[in-house]
């Protein structure tokens, strides 16, 4: 498996986009910590950037890379390699390079400036989101044969998870505000990895005190070790499920 991933990684490093991405993350993180007096404020701004930028870059980069390496995949298919191995090597190559960009670009500054529990939560959430959205991007690109369609689909998914979903949740909460919704909001947050990540990080910060009763409930749940396990579990499902569906589709596909 690593043999193939090595060629994927090599190809990605050649394109230099990943290096630019690492630099961008690094500069943003360092300047956040430099500008803000308090590290916790810097962390809050950093979190907002990560929750928007990371999924977007993971989706777009993965989709474009998949379509660009179509020839490579085709060539590998005429070799004695299973389709599973080919797709998983692609996934490993892309997610590892995006993950190392994140760990260098954000992980190092966070560890240097604020190696607190919140910092660790940011690093964990960022890593998880990278894996999740790479996986979702694979599903989008395996499903659509056409490059434009695939990228469009990926962008639509990003809009959904980053913007539309929150609107829908608010709508539900306002409509049913007469009912106790604490449990429901907990379930709803699990259906969107970005939301889950946001809650997970926020509850490590002091601002959670401002969130009232729901915040208290969240703090109770996510603060415990079962909450941590819950987050890890849901993130893992989000990373594995789309990839598994993509793999099934890829196995049946004509290339």
């Amino acid at each position, binding site marked *: 498996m690593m043999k*193939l991933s090595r060629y994927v990684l090599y*190809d990605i490093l*050649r394109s230099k986009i990943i290096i630019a991405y690492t630099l961008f993350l690094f500069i943003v993180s360092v300047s956040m910590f430099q500008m803000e007096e308090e590290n916790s404020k810097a962390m809050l701004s950093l979190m907002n950037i990560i929750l928007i930028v990371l999924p977007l870059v993971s989706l777009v980069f993965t989709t474009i890379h998949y379509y660009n390496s179509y020839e490579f995949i*085709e*060539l590998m*298919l005429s*070799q*004695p390699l299973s389709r599973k191995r080919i797709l998983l090597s692609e996934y490993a190559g892309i997610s590892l390079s995006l993950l190392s960009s994140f760990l260098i670009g954000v992980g190092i500054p966070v560890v240097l400036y604020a190696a607190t529990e919140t910092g660790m939560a940011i690093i964990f959430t960022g890593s998880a989101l990278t894996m999740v959205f790479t996986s979702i991007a694979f599903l989008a690109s395996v499903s659509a044969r056409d490059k434009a369609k695939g990228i469009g689909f990926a962008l639509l998914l990003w809009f959904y998870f980053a913007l539309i979903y929150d609107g829908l949740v608010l709508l539900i909460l306002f409509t049913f505000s007469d009912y106790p919704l604490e449990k429901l909001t907990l379930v709803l947050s699990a259906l969107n990895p970005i939301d889950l990540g946001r809650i997970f990080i926020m509850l490590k910060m002091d601002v959670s005190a401002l969130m009232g009763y729901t915040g208290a409930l969240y703090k109770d749940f996510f603060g415990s070790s079962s909450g941590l396990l819950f987050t890890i579990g849901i993130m893992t499902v989000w990373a594995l499920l789309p990839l598994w569906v993509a793999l099934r589709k890829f196995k049946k596909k*004509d*290339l």
Partner: protein
Amino acid sequence: MIRIEHINKRFKKLKALNDISVSFEKGQVISLIGPNGSGKTTLIKSILGMAKPDSGKIYFNNECINGGFNYRNEIGYMPQIGRYPDNMKIGQLFSMLKNIRNTMEENIDNELIREFDLCPMFEKPMRTLSGGTRQKVSAAIAFLFNPPVLILDEPTAGLDPLSSEILKEKIIKEKQKGKLILITSHILSDLDELTTHVMYLQDGKMQFFKNIETLREDTGEIKLGKAIARIMKGEDPTGNFISEVLNKKI
């Protein structure tokens, strides 16, 4: 060696393969002939597992290939249009394939790389290559691992006469080693000296699969091109490709 049983493949409305059953044995050189879009490449891709037939089975050495991949160790494939990673250099491409296949250096057949004089171009990225050079690279890859089965999709298209001759020589050499070789081509004169069997496809249907000797006897023609033309005329008075296409248009 390769046995195909009742395979069907449909692309939306188009029936690309229609109930094809055939069996290829060692030592045969099979010419796969038919008009454009008759299903030749789809048949080849099905054998390679790149296209998945809707129904039917394909056996390689008596084992059903159904999703397997190890059998591809024994196949060298030259695609019709060789598409390769743009950034990769020719040399890297060869070393990567060797690395993936894990073949001993003594089993590697570098003859075509030498004959086509590809070594001086090892540092060139694939995207800068001309169509003909790409075709040479594809051919060199197909023969590289000395496989017992060779599948060549339009091998001489786009090659200059000299290289085309080198490739034909190489195919004859491999034929003498008793390999199974499957060739599609529209240049029937190229196939004349190579082929032992002819398989004719039309609209996804196999019209016939014949030994070349029988074909020659049946038609009384020595040249393959003329023999095929005669057969087609016998079955259908307007039986050559061009008039058929024209008739459909009208």
